[in-house]
């Protein structure tokens, strides 16, 4: 074997190296059983969402009505699915490499650690984007077949972007945890605990206290409120959660009601009257424009993503391989 017939230059291009890391990571992502499992669950939930009303109506001999707003009212991947997609995609992106020892040959290649991390994040983006694109396509095709032509389909790219932004808050949390712990199980357990704390905690804070404002700055479901559209006979256009997990739903509401306000409420268990029903238990706290709520949620999500990915990069860049 001749070892001196080298005809290529030793100046690797950054983009070629970046693509190599993306390919390395993508091949891993699409072959992960956990990822495929979550994708199957997401498709199952979407299928159920599409067909359950039809099945129920058939069961009770009720006619199936066309619903041109089916897609717009069902867009936005739920908080749990966003979290699960983030978890299965990046839970072992960094920690798994350290645990298995595969980080050693990778870090001894002539490629900077910064580029490795960028490649891993890019691969996570492509993987999750592809999964969401498939899900939305499936939902649109299924919705159109079952409920007839749909309104506002031009919102779909924005919805996917909103869901990606929401997912990447969790991606950045999990990547930072993976860099810190270098242990996949620990990373997953802490991430699940954070997710549960944010969701259970935010529900309690939002419903029973007057401190819902703090939820605007935490990842997850956020504070609960009502969309109020001035000048409409029915003032409440629907309920909404304002956290980083609900950016897509806020984008849709803003598109439909650009001048709407969000009114935050709390439950007063002792204040209600038997005649007033459930609404008499609600106490309005304060209102703010939906545009501000959306802008703040996007800014908070971006801040978390930037801060946590910077933290992951800082730790990864300085990590020493002892084992």
């Amino acid at each position, binding site marked *: 074997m001749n070892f001196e017939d080298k005809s290529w230059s030793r100046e690797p291009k950054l983009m070629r190296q970046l693509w190599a890391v993306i390919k390395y990571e993508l091949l891993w992502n699409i072959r992960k059983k956990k990822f495929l499992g979550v994708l199957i669950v997401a498709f199952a939930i979407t299928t159920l969402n599409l067909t359950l009303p039809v099945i129920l109506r058939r069961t009770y001999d009720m006619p199936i009505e066309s619903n041109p707003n089916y897609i717009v009212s069902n867009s936005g991947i739920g908080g749990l699915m966003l979290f699960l997609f983030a978890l299965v995609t990046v839970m072992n992106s960094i920690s798994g490499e350290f645990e298995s020892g595969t980080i*050693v*040959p990778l870090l*001894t290649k*002539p490629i900077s650690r910064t580029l490795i991390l960028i490649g891993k994040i890019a691969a996570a983006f492509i993987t999750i984007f592809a999964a969401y694109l498939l899900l939305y396509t499936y939902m649109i095709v299924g919705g159109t077949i079952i409920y007839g032509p749909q309104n506002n389909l031009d919102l779909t790219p924005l919805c996917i972007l909103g869901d990606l932004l929401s997912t990447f808050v969790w991606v950045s949390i999990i990547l930072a945890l993976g860099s810190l712990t270098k242990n996949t199980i620990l990373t997953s357990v802490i991430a699940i605990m954070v997710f549960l704390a944010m969701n259970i905690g935010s529900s309690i804070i939002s419903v029973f206290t007057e401190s819902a404002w703090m939820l605007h700055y935490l990842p997850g479901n956020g504070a609960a409120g009502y969309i109020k559209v001035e000048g409409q006979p029915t003032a409440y256009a629907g309920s909404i959660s304002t956290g980083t997990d609900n950016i897509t739903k806020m984008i849709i509401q803003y598109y439909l009601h650009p001048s709407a306000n969000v009114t935050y409420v709390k439950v007063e268990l002792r204040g209600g009257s038997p005649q007033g029903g459930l609404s008499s238990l609600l106490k309005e706290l304060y209102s703010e424009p939906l545009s501000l709520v959306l802008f703040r949620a996007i800014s908070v999500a971006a801040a978390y993503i930037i801060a946590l990915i910077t933290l992951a990069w800082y730790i990864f860049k300085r990590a*020493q391989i*002892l084992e």
Partner: protein
Amino acid sequence: MGRALLKSLGPKPLDLAIETIDLTKRYGSLVAVNRLNLRVGKGTIHGFLGPNGAGKTTTIKILVGLLKPDGGRAIVLGEEVHGDNPRSRLKIGYMPELPKFPRHLKGWELLDIYGQMYGMPLQERRTRIKRLMELVGLKGRENDLIGEYSKGMQQRLGIAQALLSEPELVILDEPSLGLDPVGMVEVREIIREIAREGVTVFLSSHLLSEVEQVCTHISIIHRGVCLAEGPLKDIISKISGSAILEVEVAETPDKIVEAVKRLPFVSNIHVEGSRVIIETNANGDVRPQISRAIIEAGGTIIYMNLRMRSLEETFMRLIMKSR
């Protein structure tokens, strides 16, 4: 003694593939590498020896950028190794001890991705991967997932990825570990072959016989300190003497001992019954001179055996001395 040998036997600074100057690495209170001065000449097969915990793997990890030194300098192929410096790894091929590769990738996929990281063009990668797979005995298994490879096959893949980029320096950490006897012989042949092409090989191994068979130069370290460094034969002869001559004589050996002792190349002599054990410093075969001296002293030689000093003896002598 190490410093003296280093000065007398080491290559000139311009011809160095690896140079460390007062390299130091601590793990808490333990000094793993203690002001290590290592000089590896270009084009040599340099064995890196030491007992367990001597600091071999730590030194290698510093050379390939996996660990940061606490003091001193490391220069590899003229590039200073500091922090995350991909340039210093551009011309190096490194095979870690018991290498681990991502189980989700196929053998050729891994080499293809690593090749991209080195900036190798597609055609070059294809040709090279095919040849390397043949060389390491993985032909026909390149399309299998690495997760299905045995330990020995992963070891072979480790050698292939270390040679992928046509490196100027190949660092092999225990390349024969986990290989069957046939594999070990093949590895030795590969090392000789790449060295014939002018590639510098830096080989860390516990198998002293392997080192003795393939290496031209060695460094012996213990407790992070270099005890000896230079051409293999010179080190053996300087530390252990070149050879041991075992002579059985018919007569009482007193007169013979006196006669042999006067020979300038005899470093030590002792008597076991009718046998005289003579240790020499000479580089050539000294049996004729010794025979003559014995006969002139009136002795009759019944049996004579020349045994060259082994690396194992030298190694043990050095390590025991430094304890």
